[in-house]
């Protein structure tokens, strides 16, 4: 699946959250969306994942622009996985039910198939003892790993992550990033908006640096960290590495 953003932009009211974004998702290698908060990272993720419709330009999948209709977009989203910053899990369902819900109702698996898949994912992320707990009984890191397991349930071609560790303390952040490294080793394409620069640097791939609602720089991750390519990027890195 080849995904391209062609001069895409998104407006909320009178405010452009994002303008004139042209990029092609690198398949099989991660794309890191970096940049200051409010710079348009989340919006770009949502556009690429078919959760929002661009107000200008288009998102193309295998050369065909995504149509602005919910049924087609839903079919497209079913091929992807998505993890948000927080509020991913349904509070009335157990960890296991959170994972089986999309398998059963969006991917038409039988109850037994979905359960088996959920159990294998829970085992993989060392969460099996928590299978029957509700989100309120789990730590932030456990919740994010369950969200990750849910996003992987149907073997998505591409996994989108919108600041998955920003609401977590350092220990839980490490927990989630370890799980993520594990997923990355499988060769699945990750599109990750993050402030976790250490992880970004280790992950490699490509950096898209977004600032002031524009794509300011696009290039190899190693290059971005070796020599900040723009004054904006230098300022951003200096600010985050200070903490």
């Amino acid at each position, binding site marked *: 699946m080849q995904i391209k953003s062609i001069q895409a932009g998104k407006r909320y009211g009178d405010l452009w959250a994002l303008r004139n974004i042209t990029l092609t998702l690198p398949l099989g290698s991660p794309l890191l969306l970096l940049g200051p908060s409010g710079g348009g990272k989340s919006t770009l993720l949502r556009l690429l994942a078919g959760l929002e419709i661009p107000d200008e330009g288009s998102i193309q999948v295998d050369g065909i622009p995504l149509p602005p209709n919910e049924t087609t977009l*839903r079919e497209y989203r079913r091929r992807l996985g998505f993890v948000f910053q927080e509020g991913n899990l349904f509070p009335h369902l157990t960890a296991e039910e959170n994972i089986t819900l*999309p398998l059963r109702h969006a991917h038409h698996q039988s109850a037994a198939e979905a359960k088996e898949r959920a159990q294998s994912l829970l085992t993989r992320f060392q969460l099996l003892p928590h299978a029957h707990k509700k*989100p309120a009984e789990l730590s932030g890191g456990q919740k994010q790993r369950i969200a990750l397991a849910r996003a992987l349930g149907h073997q998505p071609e591409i996994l989108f992550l919108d600041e998955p560790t920003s609401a977590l303390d350092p220990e839980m952040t490490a927990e989630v990033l370890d799980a993520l490294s594990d997923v990355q080793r499988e060769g699945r394409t990750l599109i990750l908006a993050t402030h976790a620069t250490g992880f970004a640097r280790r992950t490699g791939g490509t950096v898209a640096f977004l600032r002031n609602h524009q794509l300011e720089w696009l290039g190899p991750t190693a290059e971005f960290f070796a020599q900040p390519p723009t004054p904006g990027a230098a300022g951003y890195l200096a600010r985050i590495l200070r903490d």
Partner: protein
Amino acid sequence: MKPLRPHPLLTALSLFLVLSLLGGFFAIAFQSLHWEWRWDAVWAYREKFFYGWCTTLLLGSATLLLSIPLGLVLAAGRIAGWLPIRQFCTLLVELIRGTPLLVQILVLFYIVGSALGLQNRLLAGTLILTLFEAAYFSEIFRGAWLSIPQSLITSSRAIGLTPACTFRHIITPLGLRNSLPALAGQTASLLKDSSLLSVIAVTEVTHVAQEINAFTYGTLESYLPLALAYLVLTAPLAFFTRRWEKSLAYAN
């Protein structure tokens, strides 16, 4: 936050205190009235009273069964409808909630009902009450719907659920959990609201009590059992809803 559970003995003692305080207050009030109790005159009408109580129960159950789906439709119309539908539902709900039930009963029965040739009082009463309660239920459902965090709806879209699936697996269970206390309260209100149908001579239990009072002049002997007759219906409702609420709890 969960309050600490006191010792059972303490609970019983406290309940005894509260009951004797309330009981004592009413005992003194009744004492000062010097009422001459005449239960025998009223006792003769017990069958009629029981029949009226059964009518209330039937009327209330039918209204509940009809007004909940209608309330859902009105709420859906207000949230997601096409503009004229949204305006219609909003206007209807605000009109019903903004005017006295008594006026609605009289207008709908004597004017609209007559025009439509609807003469069966029990049926007409059930329909009028259904419309009234549906307006209130619709606001409870709308509130429950709006109380569901947008992040969960986005989450549901992201995992590829259809709107129907989201409604069934996410909105309904979460909304039910949030609105259960209000729904139980409204159901108790519904039972008591049905007493106003006595003005169009539906022979429900309040109408019967009014008749017994007229025949026997035993005002308190007619109306105190009436209060009890409603309490027998509403108290279990409160009790079972609380238990149901506990079984639906998902967070501390």
